[in-house]
């Protein structure tokens, strides 16, 4: 069989095949469709980057929390009652004027689901996974991010079960902002390292 035909047969009718697999697994009693509905819903509606944004905003406003976060991010995140629970080995890495952090998983798509939700398509894509470790400045340019020339870039390749969240720098001009207002400018990309918090344009 030619490569092209092979690809076609492997990937054709995926929707129908997913439905068939779910039917078989349900008929056998291995899965309960009501449980599957709830598993889908958890990441569609409950868990997303807002969880991480709350953690970052707290770190910006509470130096003790920030120190705890950098020491053990799992424990610190779980001390915030209003963020859903975080499992083992979350590691927070801090952006400073000297160093900018960027997180990737070159081997698959490891990502801190509990604090950022499910990863975007680009994070799981070949362009990001291949280039982040060799051409991080080029990748940042793709996101419209330009760092000062003297800033060092540290790339964290998530090759084990440790998970990374970037603690971005608090932007200038936000000294009077409340924690809730700060959380609004902490985007998903800021916590991966492909974005910077933008106070302009925020209310």
């Amino acid at each position, binding site marked *: 069989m030619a490569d092209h035909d092979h690809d076609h047969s492997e*990937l054709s009718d995926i929707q129908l095949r997913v439905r*068939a697999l779910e039917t078989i*697994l349900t008929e056998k009693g291995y899965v309960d469709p009501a449980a599957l509905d709830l598993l889908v819903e958890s990441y569609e509606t409950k868990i997303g980057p807002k969880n991480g944004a709350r953690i970052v905003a707290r770190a910006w406003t509470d130096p003790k929390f920030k120190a705890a976060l950098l020491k053990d991010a799992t424990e610190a995140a779980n001390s915030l009652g209003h963020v859903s629970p975080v499992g083992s080995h979350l590691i927070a890495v801090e952006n400073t004027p000297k160093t900018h952090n960027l997180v990737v998983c070159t081997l698959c798509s490891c990502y801190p689901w509990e604090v950022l939700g499910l990863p975007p*398509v680009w994070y799981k894509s070949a*362009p990001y996974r291949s280039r982040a*470790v*060799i051409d991080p400045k080029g990748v940042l340019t793709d996101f419209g991010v330009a760092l000062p020339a003297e800033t060092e870039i540290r790339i964290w*390749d998530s090759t084990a079960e440790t998970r990374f969240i970037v603690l971005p720098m608090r932007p200038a001009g936000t000294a009077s902002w409340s924690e809730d207002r700060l959380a609004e400018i902490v985007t998903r990309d800021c916590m991966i390292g492909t974005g910077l918090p933008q106070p302009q344009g925020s209310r």
Partner: protein
Amino acid sequence: MSNTIHDMGGMHGFGPVEPEPNEPVFHAPWEGRVHALQRAIGAAGLWTIDGGRASLETLPPQTYLAATYYQRWFLGLEKRVVAYGLIGADELTTGHSLRAPVPLKRKVTPADAAKPPIRGNFERPTNTPARFKIGDRVRTANINPATHTRLPRYARGKQGVIEAIRGCHVYPDTAALDVHNESPQWLYTVVFTGQELWGDDADPAITVSIEAFEPYLLPA
């Protein structure tokens, strides 16, 4: 397999990264179903997270590259449920169950699924002291196993520095092959200069770290 298409760090030619504004969590309902099926069947504990990864890595490279993320998840899951005897290939063909199920150690109930998902803990107790300490210079092994590993090709045979010790964790290289063979190993953050990884022309402002298990490391 280790030297397969999934190991992409440092490759050229894939083009620019294309962020999608206002991206939905799932782009079609079937993606959500694949996500949920994977988590529900994974809970039975028949394979490890690395066994699951290995089933995607061993897809034919042309399929791996042509497939979207959830297509890959589906192809890996379909392969595993047959390989582990949960269903038969004939059942996939007919689209229905043709025989009695095998017993599963754990099934996800709606009550389980309603709880916030929490990652498993991969750290394990050990009596063996860590071989390296923070600040030690190390060289990564030059290994090319035919089976699963988490040492990326771009970081093999390279000199780096131990920056952090993360505890003793389930070893992916053995756990991928056998759910009962966790062989826990010390895990380190090892940092490399851009030049060490990519040569003298590399940007001196870049450093890269990997999370490296102790068997991947030698004293330098």
